[in-house]
């Protein structure tokens, strides 16, 4: 079953310098039990996309297009309706666990509140359930009443994951779940996320800049650049037969592949180049690329790319 589907989704902000298109004409979908990973660098709009699904963006934001959760258009949902969906049906794991947890509240209390709100549990059973979930995510039993600042970085991230799991939602959005963690801790967190997705048949929407994390977690991958999805496909397709010059460049730039740089810098969102957004950095750019933006081309049923190289 299709859980989330975005059609021609656009998200833009009003800023002093004018409209900023953080997400532009994006199509994507997540099916039940499927892991979709969005890979992107700074300013690619990946976090904005995640926050759009949760409808947690600041008030100076405007949406266009459609974004369906099951059969509900989230963009048209009222704040009240969203309140009911958030936490219960759409759960999110925020970036930066130290600041994302209330410093004046124990981690267990965080979960208890969510359980009381969405599951209508009484204090006692909510507390028991919260402890259960926390221990399940790997937090030592004697630390479940700790406050965020008392936990180590890895445990804090686990606590935040536990909070996302509290109501057993069908979909879990994880925004840079491994950012700022040491490699050994990162491995544990990635394993935990895989365990969750495998055991609980949960669909995950994961946002990351780390290709390795994406390879480990994804069923399908979407590569974002300047608010657009330049290429999307299954993990195998993306890593074994990448098509878009940007995707190829990203993989080649990875330290494990010899640090082959992509020239130039990512364009500013208010001052996007004419034509394909990637063409100023692209070795294969032609006159056509500079004139108009390529449509999406299907390479296979799952592998789609926005590049004129695919059309010719």
């Amino acid at each position, binding site marked *: 079953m299709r859980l989330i589907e975005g059609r021609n989704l656009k998200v833009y*902000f009003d*800023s002093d310098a004018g409209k*900023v298109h953080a997400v532009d004409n994006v199509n994507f979908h997540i099916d039940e039990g499927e892991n979709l990973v969005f890979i992107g660098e700074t300013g690619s709009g990946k*976090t904005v996309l995640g*926050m759009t699904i949760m409808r947690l963006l*600041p008030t100076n934001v405007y949406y266009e297009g459609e974004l369906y959760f099951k059969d509900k258009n989230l963009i048209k949902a009222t704040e009240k309706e969203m309140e009911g969906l958030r936490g219960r049906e759409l759960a999110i794991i925020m970036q930066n666990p130290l600041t994302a947890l209330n410093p004046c509240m124990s981690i267990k209390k965080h979960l208890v509140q969510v359980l009381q709100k969405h599951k209508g549990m009484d204090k006692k059973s909510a507390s028991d359930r919260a402890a259960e979930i926390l221990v399940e995510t790997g937090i030592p039993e004697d630390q479940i009443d700790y406050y965020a600042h008392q936990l180590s970085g890895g445990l804090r991230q686990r606590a935040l994951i536990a909070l996302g799991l509290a109501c057993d939602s069908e979909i879990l959005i994880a925004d840079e779940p491994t950012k700022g963690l040491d490699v050994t801790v990162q491995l544990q967190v990635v394993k935990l996320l895989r365990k969750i997705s495998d055991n609980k048949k949960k669909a995950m929407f994961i946002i990351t800049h780390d290709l390795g994390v994406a390879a480990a977690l994804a069923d399908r991958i979407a590569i974002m650049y300047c608010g657009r999805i330049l290429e999307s496909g299954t993990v195998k397709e993306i890593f074994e037969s990448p098509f878009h010059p940007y995707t190829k460049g990203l993989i080649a730039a990875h330290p494990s592949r010899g640090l082959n740089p992509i020239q130039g810098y990512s364009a500013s969102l208010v001052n996007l180049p004419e034509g394909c957004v990637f063409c100023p950095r692209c070795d294969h750019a032609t006159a056509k690329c500079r004139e108009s933006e390529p449509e999406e081309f299907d390479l296979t049923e799952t592998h789609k790319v926005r590049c004129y190289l695919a059309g010719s």
Partner: protein
Amino acid sequence: MIAQTANGNGSVSASTVYSEKKVSTWWRKFTKNKLLFISSIFCAALVFAVVFAPLFTDQDPNKVDLTKRLLQPGEDGSFLGTDGFGRDLFARILYGGRTSLGLSVCIVVVNAAIGLIVGTTAAFLGGIVDGIIMRIVDILMAFPSVILSLFIVGVFGASTFNLFISLIVLGWIGYARMSRSLVLSLKEQVFIQSSRTLGCSKIRIIFTHLIPNVFPTILIYGAMHIGSAILSISSISFLGLGVQPPTAEWGSMLSDAKQYVSLYPHMVIFPGIAIAASVLIFNIMGDGVREFADPHAKKIIKT
């Protein structure tokens, strides 16, 4: 965090525009901040009226004329009436503004200067110097400023100069604490460390990096405190322990007027409005300046 993403996008873009049309952007931002814009106009008008008082009244503020005692506003050609000595109230308010505003600006400037120097030195030298200065600050903080002022004026006698001194004894503390905490956080910043690794001397760092970075925040903090300086001056003068007669000052005018409160309320009302209005203008302007300034300063100076 979302804000971060949004700002991240915004700031890159804002910056390109900023460098091209810096002045016009600045002006647009200034006029867009309505509170700041309007209060600045009022403030300019106030300063103008006080500085060029003779343009607005031909009365001598200190001329005693017992035949014109206690006139009501409008009576006998007097705009706001006269006081118990027959002195023109309107003229006294205008000239009194010179004392009130002038004195408060002086106090703020002196306090800011002392505070900036002491705070920066304490933070940068650290160790014992910092410890001693902070203990002094701790001790001085024990006394509410009006009460310490009363104490000083009480011991040394009531005069404008002693009032001035008494408001400086405690006044510099806020600025010192602020510059200290600013410098402490600046010290940890990478650009200071990198200057050190480039071979910058400590003195060079203080003068080229620290003070220029601390100064704007101190300036804003000072702007926000002109209003409260006016209030302190007039409070103590009201108690009869500040500016001494016959010099016109809003607080001491109210002190004189106190005995006439039930029969001639105009003597109480007008100087009070003068104080309240000018303090309000400065307070709004202070708020506006803070909002106008960079978000960094906004975070450090709370209300």
